């Protein structure tokens, strides 16, 4: 039961992170004063290839 709940939460977080990655990939930079190094995989979320 606890394991299933944990898996469900992880899946929801992954979906939310996918939405966030799509927004991040289609903008200039991070809002704050620090920009983490963008991984190569981020390009697959870009609208312009």
């Amino acid at each position, binding site marked *: 039961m606890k394991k299933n709940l944990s*898996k469900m939460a*992880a899946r929801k977080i992954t979906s939310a992170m996918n939405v966030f990655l799509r927004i991040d990939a289609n903008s*200039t930079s991070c809002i*704050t*004063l*620090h920009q*983490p190094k*963008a991984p190569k995989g981020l390009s697959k979320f870009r609208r312009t290839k």
Partner: protein
Amino acid sequence: MIQKCANAAAGWLIRCDAAAEEDRELYAYAIHSFLLSFSPLLLSLALGIGMGCVWQSLLLTFPFMVIRKFSGGYHAKHSGVCLFSSCLLLYLCIRLSLSITQGQALACIAAGASASLIHFSPIDNKNRRLSTEEHRCYKKITFFLVAVFLLLDILCLTFHLDACSICISISILLTAGLQLPCIAKKLLPHIEAFQK
């Protein structure tokens, strides 16, 4: 520390079969970036509650967050420096918004800052380079966003909502101000070459 938390969270997503092992770096980046992105909002909310001006601090942070996402600007090398300077800058901006009473002069300065934002944006970072097409696209988005917030600023002034106008003006000034170190870095070699 944020990076370590992001790596641990990405590891947990993989262990729960919610993400593939090859996407570890991608999700660690997403969580790191997510935590950093929402920190100004949380910081301003905390400062707003502490200083008794929640709506001013949120009104000041929102245009900054939206415009900066597309305009870009100065970025610190470490997230610790980033959090400290964000906190300090937000505090100073909230204090400034509380001490100014007349919005007209500030709105005029914000109009000048908007012109600078439209001209120099987007400013990319070595950790996230933009292609020519992205550059063109984000310039248009920045132009649109700056125009919307400047129009909102003028509307607030027209309807004598000076406190709102001051918050929007400071927000535009903060976004433009955070581009200045990058603009100076870009222009200095040209000025030195011109002087020679």
